[in-house]
């Protein structure tokens, strides 16, 4: 256990040091959220609060506060979807992947651990976005139940990681052009409720939204952070996310093992 935690820390430290060695990019990425928050703030000024109020009554909030959570979570969830594959491809193209695989580390960790810094950084970015939203643009998060929000976030990470690991497995074999990532990124942005409530969608699309875990992630985060809902009130979201994790994660890990084994059989582990 201790050596595993050492390894977790080693990956986070490595990626933190690499990220901060690009100082301008690091600062820009961290603060660029300001422009997105400002963009949605001004959009929200165009939206009639009476009309949007009905749609957003579930969250007892205005459009700006609603979309702020969506914006903060979207980048974070994007890392869950594409971070594993991105890190894998970086390892392939930079040439460090084979050396990491030659170390006595379980292959699945070589796939998963490089993404930890991505999650931490996205969480930091999400936090900064919320800070901008609350302290500069006046979003209302006064009722937030942070503990419940954190639990929802944890299960969001694990359920999104299912797609992330599957996506990385595809990249491991076909090297480029992962369709899974494309589909779920689009779905996450468009129909899961990142920028508008799913009630606005046509019935058939709203039905599609209901089978996506992202929908429950956005809903759970908004309920806990905007209305102060506790765990019991978001239990439905939590059950879906945890159920998805329990079923999907072992499957994703099995697929990843198979993809690594295939890549080794093909002799294409470091090929990109």
């Amino acid at each position, binding site marked *: 256990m201790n050596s595993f935690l*050492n390894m977790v820390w080693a990956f986070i430290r*490595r990626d933190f040091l690499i990220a901060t060695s690009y100082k301008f990019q690091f600062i820009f990425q961290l603060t660029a959220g300001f422009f997105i928050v400002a963009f949605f703030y001004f959009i929200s000024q165009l939206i009639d609060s009476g009309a949007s109020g009905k749609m957003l009554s579930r969250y007892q909030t205005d459009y700006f506060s609603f979309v702020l959570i969506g914006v903060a979570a979207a980048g974070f969830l994007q890392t869950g979807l594409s971070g594993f594959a991105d890190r894998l491809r970086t390892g392939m193209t930079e040439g460090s992947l*084979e050396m990491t695989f030659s170390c006595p580390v379980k292959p699945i960790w070589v796939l998963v651990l490089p993404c930890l810094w991505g999650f931490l950084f996205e969480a930091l970015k999400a936090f900064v976005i919320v800070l901008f939203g609350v302290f500069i643009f006046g979003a209302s998060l006064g009722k937030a139940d942070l503990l419940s929000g954190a639990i929802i976030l944890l299960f969001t990470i694990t359920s999104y990681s299912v797609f992330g690991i599957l996506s990385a497995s595809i990249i491991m074999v076909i090297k480029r052009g992962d369709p899974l990532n494309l589909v779920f990124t689009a779905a996450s942005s468009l129909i899961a409720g990142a920028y508008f409530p799913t009630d606005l969608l046509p019935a058939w699309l709203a039905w599609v939204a209901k089978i996506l875990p992202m929908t429950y992630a956005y809903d759970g985060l908004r309920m806990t952070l905007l209305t102060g809902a506790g765990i019991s009130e978001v239990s439905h979201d939590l059950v879906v996310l945890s159920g998805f994790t329990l079923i999907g994660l072992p499957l994703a890990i099995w697929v990843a093992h198979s993809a690594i084994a295939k890549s080794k059989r093909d002799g294409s582990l470091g090929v990109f």
Partner: protein
Amino acid sequence: MTEHTSLLHVDRVSKAYVVRSMKEVLLRRPPRYVNALESITMHLQPGQVTALLGPNGAGKTTLINILCDLTRADSGSVVVGGYPIPEKSLDAQSEIGYVTTNDRSFFWRLTGRKNLEFFAVLQGMSQQLAGNRTHELLVRFNLLEQADRPFNTYSAGMKKRLGIARAFLQDPAILLMDEPTNGLDARSTEDLLGLVKKEIMESQKTVLWATHRADEVERLCDRVIVLIGGRIYFDDAIDAFREVSRRHQVFTIESRLPETPSESLDQFISETDLTLQGDKTSRTVKMIGTGDKQHLSDILAGLIGKGVLISQIERQSEPLHKVFMHLENSVSDKAVHSA
């Protein structure tokens, strides 16, 4: 060389890569296979430094990748330090220090020290132990002064030294070194070979040194395995390899032909496979042939006996690939020893 005492045991390992273009996939044509390794058998004894010598494309990197479990063999068995691959890959990988020819295996934005510390933790060390071990190796490989500089500022020689230091991190029983001097100039190569030789001698590690350079083999290795086109053509002690190399030398004889060359001279030149360069009418020609010292002296005696004046003789080793070809043609049955 018995397999019972060997530290690294490769038995009838074969590997072929599938080559299939998009057109072939669409037309549902059966895939083509390129043989990278064909029934390779070898056993490395503890403390032995073995060269894996072969031209580019011989299969050296494929074999090393199989030993590191980066590539899976199609058939045969591999046991490293008593652990079968792939069943006990992680245990086997703990026994291996791997030096790759690829400098990109490091993280270029990190310092040399941080790179080593990262890989030390992947070898199962605690953060503190990783720090101590890294420091010790930076001293041993003369990199302490540059330890806190980003890797991308290192010279080619420093990068190679750090690569070898990384292979020593967990003090492995076996070192697999894939062309570690690749891309170095003569001076840096010389320095690196000196350093490696010292480290190997002191640590008594079992080493597989993949290279296409015979001079490296001469300097470092006890045993030579020649790999060409995925097959072993030679596996014997370094002295036996030297003997084979000696037998395959190119000689150039600058000579002046007699005013009226006899038919028997033409016949002699033809029988001894000498190649003539220059104009026979001017009588000054170069004769080029191959063979060992004895063969050369027989030729010289024959030429002098037929009235040829010898002005100069040059001897040089035949290019390695030609030696390999000779081995392929003439020595394979005799020289391949199953370990």
